[in-house]
């Protein structure tokens, strides 16, 4: 390209030789690391060279972790390392992005104009609404993809009177939100990441933070490695945080699904040995007496040792570390959420935190860590509420039932891949493919669900359109736009907005820009004090919610005054007990199959599989099995095994390791082409409706 052509091409993003500079945040997990962006001609970067990529308009873009961002302080995960490589390019691996609307014609999807595609959607929806009513259509979208986009879908649901509405937070954050709601009165994560550096005991329960939230793990590792804190890891699997805990604290290898009994036993010891913070319990909590009676009667360490697989001595020692801490920080992961009784597990862990007054003080708190970020308007959807105030909603699982019964005809999806991600996937696929009449999918890449869609809309993604979300410490992350979207792709919010207009609600969708959506959605919200101008001026730091006014500088942690958002301002103890797994692991299916994550692979792998270097790091899915079980079944590392449940089977390479317990198996959730949800069970927490991805009865045998 000639220099003049290049400069002309750069017009949209930068002119001349001085690169334009922006601040943004990583597109992936609930940590939300800050990044610095430079866009310009012929940029040169320091190694690793992955930080730079060339955009279709000829400009180079460089993304490096921001040393001044309080979240990551220059640190990054392997996902963050490859951020620049996830941007759209015309020749690279990301060239397969969706570029144009497509409409089904027989067995094929064919390119259509936006106008024709919208016309088709509006016509079909109008027909369903007038003949079958609003319950014949439903919405299901990501809740990480920006509050502005979620706001547009929520608004469309409201104006149409549709209550079939859910987000993919149902699959991973609903029990955390429900547990927080039950115990503390509100679903917001109360902590601040800086609590890590103030804690002298850190409890990691059911989380391989190294494999999922690397930068949080790095901060925890620094704290425990320096001797400033003890690490107590509670997990079914001996992942790296567990190994670190063996060196810098202690590791309790709990039997899958028995966490409630273990936490209650910790409570027993704290009470029996007088290690609880009596003042906090008396002044700021409710329900202690019933909880005390339960754990004192039935949860002595000796009473739960056999069930949990953790010795009474270990339980006592862990409880003493927690009880003697100046500031104990409790963090939980999917090990507590992807369970059929996840909300109880969360509440049982919060009980322990309340006993020692771990709430609202520096270093002393509880939080679920979460996977992806939450949309800013979305204290994650608690079962039964559409907009955290008034409107009851039906979950994606209720929608599947309705579609199967024939009472729901249409589903509009955005930034989700339910064909792959829903549990008991064979049933979900059958319903979506054969019982659903009309499926509209908005996404950034073709995926399994777009393959069966009637209409596909291409979305502008991270870096191509601004949006906001929040990380695990309630820090708003402002995502800047600095790169062109592929083809005709539009911001997600523009799609429900146009559908709403064509269905006769033009006055409700006046927005000209994403910023217009933000200005509307912030009214009455805990981020009313923010604006795009204010967010941009704050670099990649942004603000921790609530930020109620334009002069507020944000709120580092919640409940510092011991006042909780319950009617009596007190937190709640919940006298909950262990409940068995939804499927007993018996003779024909003697193993417990646990699914989980690894940082190279994000969710269903929609960015992972585009990047050859990432695939090379994790070239295949694996099934971890204990050496004792492997020897009995003639299974060796690297050989293919078939893992089966009552619902389906999957062939995968074996990895023999003592990191899993005898009788348990572990494999990756979402590895592209290794469809684990053909095996998982559709068993859900009764309160949150979050599915149990981590517990089904399974069998395994060597194949070759």
């Amino acid at each position, binding site marked *: 390209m000639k220099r003049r052509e290049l400069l002309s091409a750069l017009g949209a993003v930068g002119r001349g030789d001085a690169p334009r500079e922006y601040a943004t945040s990583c597109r992936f997990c609930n940590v939300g690391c800050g990044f610095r962006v430079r866009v310009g001609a012929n940029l040169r970067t320091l190694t690793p060279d992955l930080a730079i990529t060339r955009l279709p308009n000829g400009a180079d873009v460089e993304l490096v972790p921001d040393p001044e961002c309080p979240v990551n302080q220059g640190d990054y995960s*392997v996902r963050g390392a490859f951020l620049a490589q996830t941007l759209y390019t015309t020749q690279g691996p990301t060239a397969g992005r969706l570029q144009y609307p497509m409409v089904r014609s027989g067995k094929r999807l064919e390119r259509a104009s936006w106008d024709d595609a919208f016309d088709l959607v509006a016509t079909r929806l109008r027909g369903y609404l007038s003949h079958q009513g609003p319950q014949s259509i439903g919405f299901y979208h990501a809740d990480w993809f920006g509050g502005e986009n979620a706001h547009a879908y929520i608004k469309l649901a409201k104006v149409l009177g549709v209550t079939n509405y859910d987000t993919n937070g149902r699959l991973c954050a609903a029990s955390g939100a429900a547990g927080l709601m039950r115990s503390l009165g509100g679903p917001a994560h109360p902590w601040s990441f800086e609590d890590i550096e103030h804690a002298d005991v850190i409890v990691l329960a059911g989380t391989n933070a190294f494999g999922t939230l690397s930068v949080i793990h790095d901060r925890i*590792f620094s704290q425990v490695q320096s001797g400033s804190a003890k690490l107590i890891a509670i997990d079914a699997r001996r992942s790296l945080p567990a190994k670190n805990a063996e060196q810098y604290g202690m590791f309790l290898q709990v039997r899958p699904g028995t966490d409630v009994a273990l936490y209650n036993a910790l409570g027993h010891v704290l009470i029996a040995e007088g290690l609880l913070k009596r003042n906090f319990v008396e002044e700021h909590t409710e329900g202690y007496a019933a909880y005390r009676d339960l754990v004192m009667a039935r949860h002595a360490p000796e009473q739960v040792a056999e069930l949990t697989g953790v010795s009474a001595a270990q339980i006592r020692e862990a409880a003493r570390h927690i009880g003697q801490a100046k500031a104990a920080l409790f963090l939980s992961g999917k090990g507590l959420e992807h369970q059929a009784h996840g909300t109880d597990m969360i509440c049982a862990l919060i009980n322990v935190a309340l006993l020692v007054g771990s709430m609202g003080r520096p270093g002393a708190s509880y939080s679920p860590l979460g996977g992806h970020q939450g949309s800013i308007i979305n204290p994650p959807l608690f079962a039964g509420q559409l907009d955290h105030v008034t409107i009851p909603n039906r979950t994606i699982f209720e929608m599947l039932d309705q579609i199967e019964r024939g009472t729901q005809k249409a589903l509009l999806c955005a930034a989700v891949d339910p064909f792959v991600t829903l549990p008991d996937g064979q049933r979900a696929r059958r319903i979506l493919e054969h019982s659903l009449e009309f499926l509209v999918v908005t996404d950034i890449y073709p995926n399994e669900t777009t393959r069966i869609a009637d209409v596909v809309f291409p979305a502008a993604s991270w870096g191509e359109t601004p949006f906001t979300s929040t990380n695990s410490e309630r820090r708003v992350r402002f995502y800047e736009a600095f790169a062109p979207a592929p083809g005709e792709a539009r911001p997600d919010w523009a799609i429900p907005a146009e559908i709403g207009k064509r269905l006769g609600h033009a006055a409700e969708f006046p927005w000209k820009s994403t910023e217009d959506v933000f200005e509307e959605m912030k009214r009455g919200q805990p981020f009313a004090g923010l604006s795009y101008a204010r967010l941009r001026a704050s670099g990649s730091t942004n603000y921790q919610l609530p930020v109620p006014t334009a002069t507020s500088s944000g709120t580092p942690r919640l409940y510092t005054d011991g006042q909780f958002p319950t009617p009596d301002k007190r937190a709640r103890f919940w006298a909950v007990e262990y409940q068995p797994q939804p499927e007993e692991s018996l003779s024909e299916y003697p193993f417990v199959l646990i699914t989980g994550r690894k940082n190279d692979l994000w969710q269903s792998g929609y960015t992972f599989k585009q990047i050859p270097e990432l695939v090379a790091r994790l070239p295949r899915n694996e099934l971890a099995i204990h050496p004792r079980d492997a020897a009995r079944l003639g299974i060796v590392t690297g050989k293919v095994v078939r893992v089966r449940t009552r619902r389906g089977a999957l062939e995968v390479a074996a990895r023999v390791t003592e990191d899993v317990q005898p009788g348990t198996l572990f494999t990756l959730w979402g590895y592209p082409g290794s469809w684990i949800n053909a095996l998982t069970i559709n068993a859900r927490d009764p309160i949150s409706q979050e599915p149990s991805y981590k517990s089904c009865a399974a069998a395994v045998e060597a194949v070759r």
Partner: protein
Amino acid sequence: MTKLTRREMLAITAAGTAGAALTKGNDVPVASGLSGGTQPRIRVGTLAEVSRGPLQFSYPSSSYPAQATRLPDGKVIAYSLICTHIGCPVEYTAARETFVCPCHQSIFSAVRDGAVLQGAAPRPLPKIRLDIDTKTGTIYAVGISAPPYGASEG
């Protein structure tokens, strides 16, 4: 003094090529300090010395610590000692033939061209190409598979 076999020579000269293949295959210029063909020839030590224990040196310049190690099978290998994640100095674990970063627990293989075995490090540990004078047993560092973390053309 240990005599160098032909197999050892081949192992040594093959070093440092695999990592380069992982470099991003687009045409974006990457500053490296190496693009001008300035991969110096630096004396590391002797086979006798490396047989007694790892040799520390710097490559491609004094800012970048490196280490030559003789593996149990007799091969002499050399790597940059700067983690490709954030630039912490890595430590060699002889028992596992790995380099471990004490800051964030990335692990690199000393026998698989510095491949990342664990952690956030996005790139293999840069492998240093060695040339060994068979007459004197002197080891020279003559090239590196990728620029060490943070290197630039300046």
